């Protein structure tokens, strides 16, 4: 394992810090090309699915409610997963929450700081039931005016596509602001060791997992606070409009980041009482940290703990 090359690179993407670490026996050139392709893939997802980019396919779709719209595959598939999660959680997870997020001040472009105003006339209450996917024609119909937010799914998808591009490496770790995909070996030739961030003290870990060939995603309330309203963070219950309390974070391990991301978000929104039960029902490992800093986990998570 002594001749493993280690290449790492970091960009700001999708509103967060995205790093790729790659470990390979092949030439650094090849690895760097793979990393470049991986970032391309993530840029592509951001460009199509972002709520903050007025040119995105998502925003274009939202400008045309009550019309059957053809959308790129990437948006269609992302919506499909989002709707699956909505049904599964009976609306605790809901991609129609964009306008609510915007109203709570989650409306700034992360690079320019400019306010992004979607001007969606959405006074009517909306839910995931107001979205219709036409599988045969790959069209989407929004039955009411609404602003979609695919933040909880699109980032995971971006990570999964990036992982495909890096498949030739002996090992890699993609970190999209805490949403991870781990593959193969770390730079020392071991399985990857993942620190689970302490929700209250930055740079401190609350526990460690050892894992590889899986995605690990954490949904938490501690990084993004509403600039407008006290006690509001970015994980808002679609039905009540309130931020969720009881949990500080929920970490889920899954074969794909799009699942880990969606399931951890949904579990967090379901709240302290139902989070673990929900993830366990999907046969995925989960670890929750309560607002009293109690760590609880599913049985399946235990074997990942170091």
């Amino acid at each position, binding site marked *: 394992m002594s001749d493993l090359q280690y290449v790492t690179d970091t960009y700001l993407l999708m509103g967060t810090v995205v790093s790729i670490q790659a470990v390979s026996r092949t030439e650094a050139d090849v690895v760097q090309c793979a990393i470049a392709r991986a970032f391309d893939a993530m840029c592509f997802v951001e460009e199509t699915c972002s709520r903050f980019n007025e040119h995105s396919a998502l925003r274009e779709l939202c400008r045309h409610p009550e019309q059957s719209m053809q959308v790129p595959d990437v948006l269609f598939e992302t919506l499909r997963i989002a709707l699956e999660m909505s049904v599964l959680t009976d609306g605790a997870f809901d991609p129609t929450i964009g306008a609510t997020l915007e109203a709570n001040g989650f409306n700034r472009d992360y690079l320019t700081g400019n306010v992004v105003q979607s001007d969606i006339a959405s006074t009517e209450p909306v839910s995931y039931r107001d979205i219709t996917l036409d599988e045969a024609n790959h069209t989407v119909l929004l039955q009411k005016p609404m602003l979609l937010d695919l933040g909880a799914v699109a980032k995971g998808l971006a990570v999964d596509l990036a992982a495909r591009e890096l498949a030739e490496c002996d090992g890699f770790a993609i970190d999209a602001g805490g949403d991870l995909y781990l593959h193969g070996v770390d730079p020392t030739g071991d399985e990857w060791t993942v620190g689970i961030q302490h929700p209250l003290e930055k740079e401190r870990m609350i526990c460690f997992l050892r894992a590889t060939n899986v995605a690990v995603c954490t949904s938490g309330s501690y*990084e993004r606070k509403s600039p407008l309203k006290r006690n509001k963070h970015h994980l808002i219950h679609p039905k009540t409009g309130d931020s969720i309390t009881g949990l500080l974070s929920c970490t889920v391990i899954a074969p794909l980041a799009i699942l880990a991301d969606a399931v951890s978000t949904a579990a967090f929104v379901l709240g302290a009482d139902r989070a673990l039960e929900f993830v366990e029902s999907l046969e995925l490992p989960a670890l929750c940290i309560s607002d009293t800093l109690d760590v609880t986990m599913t049985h399946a998570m235990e074997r990942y703990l170091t």
Partner: protein
Amino acid sequence: MASKMGKRLIGIAGVAVTAIYTAGYIYTMPSVNAQTSSGMPLSPTNNNTTPGAAATAHSAHTASKSSSTTNSTTSPKKKPSTSSSSTAASSSAAKYKNGTYTGMGTNPYGSIALTVTIAHGKISAVHITNWSMHYPQSVVDPQLPQEVVQMQTYQIYIVSGATASTYNFAQAVYQALQKAKA
């Protein structure tokens, strides 16, 4: 029943990721039409029509040659919207000159350096070129000896947590964008 749900979800997600990967990263900018008409509603029978002509091709799966030789300089060839679609941009958007601009930022824990690449007047990439944040030892809590032991046993390369904010980078991005406006 429960496990069925999980397996089904995993299946759907796997198929979705493969479908997108196979299709390649071609994004057809629909807003090209939005500026001329009020959009392009499609009748269900008209499913072959793809709105917008300004196809934005990403370098899909063909190897994009990286110019870099050593560590940590790859550049995603993110090709933003074509010139025709950028005319649909709202007037409030700042106009940037094409090129690559550097920005620096500091906080009590260290400094960062980044480059912002502008293509077609829009931000196409923000690359972190140097990131040295040295958190004081006191931040790493000494109360949990178990943790310290683990830290010494394993290399921690990666951390999962709530989506990190880009706050630490705001100053540096702002600086680079100011240069791009000049």
